[in-house]
């Protein structure tokens, strides 16, 4: 497992952001992501950046940890910036390197897109850093609940997500076990030409799939034995309740949005 990618990795804690209702977090981030694309001058960008930084600090997770975790994304951000330098041909020519003109508009545009990208990734990773996957699942089930009316299988989808979450570590352990067993029989996953290595994965995947199907069958049986009968008539143990703090955060966010709207040109 790679530890450098933090997108999707929960960091336990008790910060105000951790304790925020997951539905509130999802809603705010959803709106934030849309609003990023409406910013059009440096004031509106500053407001959004300030909000994002404030949120980051409030998680009480070391910023260096968060930034390091975004490593794979840095590459994309820089790549987008360079792409814009090359492609965009607006404004005045600033410098000319080896017959190649770099325009002032390109720098502004490149910065803008990179910043958008950065804010987007930062905010969404804050969600997964401060919320357990199961809370996210609960929140999604709750937010999508109205879709039940049009017979959208909300409960089933949420259950599917939570069972997948529950089995990811189990299957990881199993993959590890099988790969060791196959390695001890001389299967080599790590060296050799790519074609050989892909071939070597087959004896890993086949037993993994076989066992996953067996697990699924037994799990279905166990669930039925424990009285599972679809979402109808089911009660729920985990309950999401909006607290006062959630409302404060909501009001604050609305104020930020109003400020943002006014500052737009």
């Amino acid at each position: 497992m790679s530890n450098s990618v933090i997108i999707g990795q929960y960091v336990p804690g008790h910060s105000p952001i951790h304790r925020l209702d997951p539905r509130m977090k999802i809603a705010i981030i959803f709106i934030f992501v849309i609003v990023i694309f409406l910013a059009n001058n440096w004031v509106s960008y500053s407001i959004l950046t300030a909000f994002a930084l404030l949120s980051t600090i409030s998680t009480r997770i070391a910023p260096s940890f968060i930034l390091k975790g975004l490593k794979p994304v840095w590459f994309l951000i820089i790549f987008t910036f360079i792409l814009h330098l090359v492609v965009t041909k607006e404004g005045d020519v600033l410098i000319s390197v080896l017959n190649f003109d770099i325009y002032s508009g390109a720098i502004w545009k490149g910065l803008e897109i990179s910043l958008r990208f950065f804010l987007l990734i930062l905010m969404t990773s804050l969600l997964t850093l401060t919320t357990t996957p199961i809370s996210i699942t609960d929140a999604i089930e709750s937010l999508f609940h109205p879709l039940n009316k049009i017979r959208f299988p909300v409960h089933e989808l949420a259950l599917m997500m939570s069972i997948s979450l529950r089995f990811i570590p189990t299957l990881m352990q199993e993959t590890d076990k099988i790969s060791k067993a196959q390695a001890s029989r001389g299967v080599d996953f790590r060296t050799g030409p790519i074609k050989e290595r892909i071939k070597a994965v087959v004896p890993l995947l086949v037993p993994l799939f076989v066992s996953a199907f067996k697990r699924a069958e037994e799990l279905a049986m166990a669930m039925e034995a424990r009285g599972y009968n679809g979402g109808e008539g089911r009660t729920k143990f985990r309950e999401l309740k909006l607290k006062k703090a959630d409302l404060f955060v909501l009001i604050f966010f609305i104020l930020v949005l109003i400020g943002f709207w006014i500052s737009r040109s």
Partner: protein
Amino acid sequence: MEPRHYIEFQDVSFQYPNSEDWALKGVSFHIKPNEWVAIIGHNGSGKSTIAKLMNGLLSPQQGTIHVQELPINQETIWDVRKKVGMVFQNPDNQFVGTTVIDDVAFGLENHGIPREDMQKRISYSLKAVNMEEYVNHEPHNLSGGQKQRVAIASVLAVEPELIILDEATAMLDPKGRNSIMNTVHQVRQDRDVSVVTITHDLNEVLFADRVIVMNEGNVWFEGTPREVFQKHDELQAIGLDTPFVTQLSRHLNKLGISLHKEPLTHKDLMDELWTLHSTR
């Protein structure tokens, strides 16, 4: 009045849809309230099939099954599943929740137990299996034995009248097995509950009040553990072993050292041996 039989199988036959042979061929037996029954038999003799019939996971082609004198059918099935709890062999493949507490809650949610009652039932049942310190643990951080104890807690939380353990200790080490058996003992001290253990472990059989021996889809013999293990040679003929202590006392017998009564446990045997001269 409490019914005499908690579960009653009458001439039950069952055939899996994709198979030609009958898995069960006219099986009749009963389980009394508060009784501990062990079911043994060779691989494929129909033990798991019986377990699945008991809470309606399968339904028989012939014969009837009554739970508390009510037949299992579409109307009673959810009630039956509430009363008859089941623990399976693989500790991982019956753990539904992402954490221990969620897993115990899963059964309660299914049966529509109100939220207010859940917390109480969850802490009660986790305490009964000695897992109250692990409420927020995730399954991959628990041992097999701990997961099985959670499975028992999940069943207990629903307040069942019968608990079926289908080779629930088969994948555990001796320590894990002991902890499960002790847990079941403890549970039975606290409340009225029948237990059916399906097992290949002969030491588990000794705990039972009664043993049902299955052979090729038929009930081959029914009796106390002592009665069953006296049929040593016949058991071997149908592919079953007897416990070490029974075997030892048989060999002693052959050597002319006849023990008073057939001992079943190590302690019985020891008592017999050291009192051998004085009782002669």
